[in-house]
């Protein structure tokens, strides 16, 4: 079974530039998550999708971050403009959970490491 695919693996940009990350979840997984993991910290949820609807985006800095999951499959996370403090690994995860209240393990991708100079 193919895992969660993410690209690019690494990205270096200057502050105020824009960047986009792509994620393709495991086939059949209804729930997709974007987490931000700053070095030495635990993953922090940015946004959670259930199919193509947003379940939780309360911790997404909406003035600069946006995410979409068209057709309920793959997803894109964009940062525009980037700040120095956005340097982190952006982890995409998916789970089978078919309702927002159900429980399930998360399968993570390898992550996209962003460095903002």
């Amino acid at each position, binding site marked *: 079974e193919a895992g969660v695919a993410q690209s690019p693996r690494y990205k270096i940009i200057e502050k105020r530039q824009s960047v986009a990350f792509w994620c393709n979840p495991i086939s059949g997984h209804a729930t997709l998550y974007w987490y931000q993991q700053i070095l030495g910290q635990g*993953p922090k949820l940015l946004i*959670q999708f259930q199919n193509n609807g947003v*379940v939780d985006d309360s911790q997404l800095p909406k003035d600069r971050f946006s995410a979409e999951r068209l057709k309920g499959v793959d997803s894109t996370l964009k940062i525009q403009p980037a700040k120095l403090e956005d340097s982190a690994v952006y982890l995409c995860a998916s789970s089978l959970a078919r309702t927002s209240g159900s*429980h399930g393990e*998360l*399968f*993570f991708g390898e992550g996209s490491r962003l460095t903002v100079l």
Partner: protein
Amino acid sequence: GQQVMQIPQYQHVQEGEDFTTYCNSSTTLSNIQWYKQRPGGHPVFLIQLVKSGEVKKQKRLTFQFGEAKKNSSLHITATQTTDVGTYFCAGRQTSGSRLTFGEGTQLTVNP
């Protein structure tokens, strides 16, 4: 908002020693999950606990969920060098679906 705290932040042990990490939530949880992240890797699911007072074992790993469903622990017996990594707990609130991760405990094992 919900906070999930883990202690210790770092733990260095000699191979063969035991290791325990503790997780505490500011709110009651519907379930708690544990993940392991190897250096340079991504979090990998270990286990989920749902019931109050639940205890589960995986070989040398023992997971516990507190009676009040606000705390949990992971105990590793006789650590091996393959146990190296950061262990995260992640709690899900009873009132929502967000999975909140703790800051993790980084384990190093000296051979």
